[in-house]
């Protein structure tokens, strides 16, 4: 018999290891599996920001790496650099910088961004060259594959893969549908 399968579910629950924006007790958690060199993820970036702005404290946003290394030659290094910045407490600042400067992701730019953000550049450079965060990025990638990520970006809302359109209005509506009725933007 041919198996029928429902949409994906997040197999690695959101936890301590994750980079999180928004309160831990928010009723809705939006997880994005993304790639810093993917143009679709670049389009999603300001949309997610706008959604966060509108939903506010009722939303927790989590970003996990899903670099398509064969299609996007800078994606893996960019992901590792975000993790290296995260190790110095500046994940989101680097995340924003990478998406805002998707066209400039060579190593020398990554190191320049680390300097702009006030990071310990020598440590950042050493960790980047030493591929310190490669296993961590791979762990994100594997968790995505096992959860049914089938391209980038893939979103999960409260653990269930979201296959709908990800324009601002549709995403906000999908999120509000999970919040107590009556609470609307």
């Amino acid at each position: 018999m041919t198996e029928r399968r429902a949409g994906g579910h997040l197999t690695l629950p959101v936890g301590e290891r994750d980079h999180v924006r928004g309160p831990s007790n928010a009723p809705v958690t939006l997880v994005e599996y993304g790639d810093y060199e993917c143009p679709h993820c670049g389009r999603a970036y300001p949309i997610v920001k706008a959604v966060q702005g509108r939903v506010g404290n009722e939303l927790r946003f989590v970003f996990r790496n899903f670099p398509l290394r064969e299609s996007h030659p800078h994606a893996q290094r960019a992901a590792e650099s975000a993790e290296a910045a995260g190790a110095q407490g500046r994940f989101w600042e680097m995340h924003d910088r990478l998406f805002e400067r998707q066209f400039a992701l060579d190593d020398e730019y990554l190191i320049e961004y680390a300097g702009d953000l006030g990071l310990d550049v020598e440590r950042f450079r050493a960790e980047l060259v030493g591929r310190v965060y490669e296993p961590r990025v791979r762990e994100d990638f594997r968790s995505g594959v096992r959860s049914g990520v089938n391209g980038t970006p893939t979103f999960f809302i409260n653990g269930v893969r979201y296959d709908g359109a990800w324009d601002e209005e549709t995403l906000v509506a999908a999120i509000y549908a999970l919040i107590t009725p009556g609470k609307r933007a």
Partner: protein
Amino acid sequence: MTDTHRVATGALPVGTPAPDFTLGSAPGQTISLHDYRGRPVILAFYPADWSPVCGDQLTLYNEVLEEFARYGAQLLGVSVDGVWCHAEFAQRRNLHFPLLSDFEPKGEVSRRYGAYREGEGVSERALFVLDSDGIIRWSYVSPLSVNPGADGILQALEALAPQSTAT
């Protein structure tokens, strides 16, 4: 009368020995299914080369080859595109697994697996996981426009050989 030849026959069921085949894999080269006896094989039938990049099924599988390799599995893509088309597609996308041409007679192998769309003349988006003896152990037909991802394949491979799961 109803157009009976368009009725889907359904993918070959689990437990069926996978029909052997020999298909072109590159200009002047062929690959036979029995070449891979002794290890799991993933057959990914798909409608056509050159679908959009980021959401593309084969692009995703190309990134997941390392995970498939943990189970010793070989991935083979199959569509009705010709070998030259496959060659250009594989090169542009940096694909590191064979693409086979079910080109002449057109769709013959896809038909034998119950994975051919007669009306459109293309393969279904159908997945088969074969064990090391060439028996179909899992299959899945996805709606044509939906990328089925790789999680089902990995679960099937895990079920085949849990003892060989790498850390």
